[in-house]
């Protein structure tokens, strides 16, 4: 059993999932080109588009480019509402070409494990000492290699935030410092933030993660005790801003049954 800390905030008017989606949405700056990915980021991109980043452009690896938010909740990037009114429907290579050129500002990923240098594993999990075969990279490895910034969303516990991932599906800063350059990865690329159920991690110049903010109601000890290495803490540690009324309104309009945010 994990000793996952659950933030207790009975009075707050939003769910943890909503907080994470809002935090993810804020990683998108206006007019940026965004590689959206699967699951929670599908909603986060729509929230960003309808609040602070109306000029953001969404790329989806199935070959879709969108400048307007999809009119309905998306369960997958290829749901028909994501194609109707798209800027472009093309091939996977059409969007991967832009990614490899360095024209994607930020890409979103999930993972089973993330480590102190932001390396990600979405290939092999472990439950009770037994290896579990997970679905695999999808486009994660491509985004992690080639996007200017990468943002990761995952559950915060010691089994997920580990000293060293057991399989590098998606490279972060490797073992730190100049590792990415030594591998031949683009100069302007790498992890930017890890948004967990407890807080937000960012990365120092040496490639190591530090705790940049804790979610409302979460204590720093909860974060450190649920992290598989000795996590550095920012001198100017912040509290993650709760979702705004406008952000919540978009989420609840698009996802009234809270498919993506019910946690």
């Amino acid at each position, binding site marked *: 059993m994990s000793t996952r800390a659950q933030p207790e905030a009975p009075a707050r008017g939003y769910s943890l999932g909503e907080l994470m989606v809002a935090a993810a949405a804020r990683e998108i700056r206006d007019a940026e080109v965004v590689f959206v990915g*699967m699951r929670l980021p599908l909603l986060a991109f729509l929230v960003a588009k309808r609040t602070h980043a109306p000029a953001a452009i969404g790329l*989806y*690896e*199935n*070959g*879709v480019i969108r400048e307007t938010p999809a009119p309905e909740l998306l*369960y*997958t*990037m*290829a*749901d*028909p509402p994501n*194609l*109707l009114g798209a800027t472009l*429907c*093309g*091939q*996977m*290579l059409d969007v*991967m070409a832009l*990614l*490899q050129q360095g024209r994607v500002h930020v890409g979103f990923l999930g993972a089973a494990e993330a480590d102190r240098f932001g390396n990600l594993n979405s*290939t092999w999990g472990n439950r009770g000492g*037994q*290896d*579990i*075969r*997970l*679905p*695999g*990279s*999808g*486009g*994660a*490895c*491509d985004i*992690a*290699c*080639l996007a200017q910034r990468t943002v990761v969303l995952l559950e915060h516990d010691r089994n997920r935030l580990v000293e060293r991932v057991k*399989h*590098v*599906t*998606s*490279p972060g800063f*490797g073992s730190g410092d100049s*590792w*990415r350059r030594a*591998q*031949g*990865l*683009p100069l302007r690329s790498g992890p930017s933030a890890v948004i967990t159920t407890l807080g937000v991690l960012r990365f120092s110049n040496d490639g190591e993660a530090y705790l940049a903010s804790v979610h409302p109601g979460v204590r720093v000890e909860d974060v450190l005790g649920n992290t598989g290495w000795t996590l550095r803490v920012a001198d100017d540690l912040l509290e993650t801003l709760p979702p705004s009324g406008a952000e919540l309104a978009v989420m609840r309009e698009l996802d009234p049954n809270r498919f993506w945010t019910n946690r």
Partner: protein
Amino acid sequence: MSAASKLISMQQAVAEHVPSGSMVLLGAQLEQMIPFAAGHELIRQGRRDLTLVGPISDILFDQLIGAGCVSHVLAAWVGNVSAGVGYGLRRAVEHNIPRPVQMVDYSNFTLALGLHAGALGVPFMPTYSTLGSDLLKKNGNLREFPSPVNEEKLVAVRALRPDVAILHAQRADQFGNTHLWGNLGVAVDGARAARKVIVVAEEIVAPEVIASDPNRTLIPGFLVAAVVHEPWGAHPSPVQGYYGRDHAFFSQYHEQSRQVEDFEKWLARWVAGVADRREYLNLLGACRVESLGVRQHAFSAPANFGY
């Protein structure tokens, strides 16, 4: 001279063109237009030792693996897009149930580049993707090499040439000239890279309809070995302009494939228990089918090819 029609039944197409041991591209358009009807026919005809190729396969690969049709998978992602893991893949890889499967892990981009190399007829395509990853270390079709024109490191992605690509599409003529729209994924390169193409179409239209919009003809008929007319052949995945995604079906499959006994029941009900797609649709029920239909049509403006 008139070309011969390539229109045949799904049973015939699978029987004639996809023997056991084939390397088969399926799910080329990612979560759209997954050829489930063809996959279920592969299961009914008892194929073995297939090598499945595809980027994000969603649950069709999981079903084929669970049914014992597969020995190798070359893919970026095998699972259930709305629910997460695929229990069929897990049982096969972790416990050899019902038989061992070897998964060769790609990323989406490298899988697309493998098919692109196959489509171009060259042995590999270069990329920066996968540098520094364990995909590069473990997938023998990805090899690091020094760039011949500068000081950079690159990854060579070996060409993929599937024996058969099974591609679902909106409409085709009886000769295999195919109109496809929406997100294309790796379908276009897949059709060129494969040695044979089976097109599964929602509608069979007159050649004049196809010829009226040649920009939308993404698969030329001369590359196509067989055309199958199979309305709703991609259910539960969506076909743009024809039907939506049956999200509940994916969630139900997730629950009903968790235990091997339940998966066997699922397979007996939805695959072995029906002779063809028509019976499958009857089982699904008219109400459910109707509820997935297009609620509001959205036609593109015609393009003028006149001169």
